[in-house]
């Protein structure tokens, strides 16, 4: 295949131009879901970790089951279960809402696990000392324990957040109009691979900075080995 034919198949200028608005719309939707998922996933994950620190046996058992199940299942499985299963119960959610809900729950499970490991890493003496000064449970956690735990949790939290925001591409399976969905639709209309390449570039534009930032954070917060 010569270069001209290659460019005509994968990078045709007029198709690049005509697919840009669609892919741009997809980028906005991808970013919207990613940001919404990060906000709710972190809030729920931190909440669950704090709740787990209370040490109520029955509650902790439920948290562990929730976390383990969502860590073990491929995210596409709960996406399909919720999207196709809930209407059978008379509940119908938009595909956007399903993707946001499921990815938030998955991220929350990982965040809980990481933050909990961080909380465990702080020596028990810190709890006792803080409590003995008259601090309550929550102030002890937020002012004494979590600031010390955070250093250990930042690299895995970053990696996991990147992995789960990349999963927004799963939305295409249930028809969320994110980048991949816009790109594959445009490919089937134009009979040319150009929109797919534009879509791939759109992902790179969003995620290369994120991956590089993640790498920087990992080195910045890494424990130095002697």
């Amino acid at each position: 295949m010569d270069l001209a034919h290659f460019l005509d198949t994968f990078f045709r200028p007029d198709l690049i131009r005509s697919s840009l608005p669609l892919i741009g719309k997809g980028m906005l939707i991808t970013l919207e879901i990613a940001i919404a998922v990060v906000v709710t996933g972190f809030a729920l994950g931190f909440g669950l970790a704090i709740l787990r620190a209370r040490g109520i046996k029955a509650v902790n058992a439920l948290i562990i089951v929730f976390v383990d199940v969502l860590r073990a299942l491929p995210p596409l499985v709960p996406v399909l279960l919720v999207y196709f299963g809930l209407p059978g119960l008379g509940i119908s959610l938009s595909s956007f809402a399903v993707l946001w809900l499921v990815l938030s729950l998955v991220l929350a499970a990982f965040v809980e696990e990481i933050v909990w490991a961080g909380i465990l890493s702080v020596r028990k003496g810190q709890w006792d000392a803080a409590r003995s000064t008259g601090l309550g449970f929550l102030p002890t956690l937020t002012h004494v324990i979590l600031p010390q735990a955070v250093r250990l949790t930042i690299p895995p939290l970053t990696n996991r957040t990147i992995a789960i925001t990349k999963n927004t591409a799963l939305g295409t399976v249930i028809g969320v109009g994110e980048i991949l969905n816009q790109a594959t639709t445009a490919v089937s209309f134009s009979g040319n691979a150009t929109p797919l390449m534009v879509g791939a570039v759109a992902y790179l534009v969003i995620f290369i900075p994120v991956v590089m930032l993640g790498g920087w954070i990992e080195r910045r917060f890494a424990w130095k080995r002697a």
Partner: protein
Amino acid sequence: MDLIAQQFFNLDIMRQAWPLILKGLTMTLLICAAVIPLGLVGGLLVALASQAKSAVLRRSVSAAITLFRALPPLVLLILIYAGLPFAGIRLSPFAAVCLAFLLNNASFYGEIFRAGIESVGRGQWEAARSTGLRPTAIMTHVVLPQAVRNVLPDLVSNTIEVVKLTSLASVVALPELLHSAEMARSVTYNSSPVVLAAGIYLLLLWPFVRLMSRLEHRVAQ
């Protein structure tokens, strides 16, 4: 409550779907047997290349790793499966999955192996060198065994992710576990087959997820 049992835990439908799901499970295991070794070997090569003397090689490997880490695996798979035919290269779904996973996994395993190699102190290199070992022998006999031990939890954790990723093959119509369950669901208009598939994924992966939490908590303490 009855509606939930009917819609998600219908034993009759699960029993009907069982042979199909079992075939799907076999395919999932087959994909794992292909892509996990491919990814490990690819990752090892990538890690070794990232230690190479040639700066050009190091830079290009590092750029490729960043590229394949930034592309969501599903996007990579669709690019290969739906994009390559435009260039006259038509891969079977299985081959497309293997290629997409090789590119993705080699990057992730590669970063893990690289971190492992870099975690082995310089003194080990120098000591091995002073006993007269050649660089290749130092790498295979001294550095890599220690490197792999240092990053074993990360390797296990990434392998769990790889097994989960095989479910993406359902999108390119490869009849693996999730795809079979989805077929059964669309025929019966009932989600029970997908619940059954979820149960199988849990059975396969839950022990490893538990093991990982144990390891993480032990490191933390």
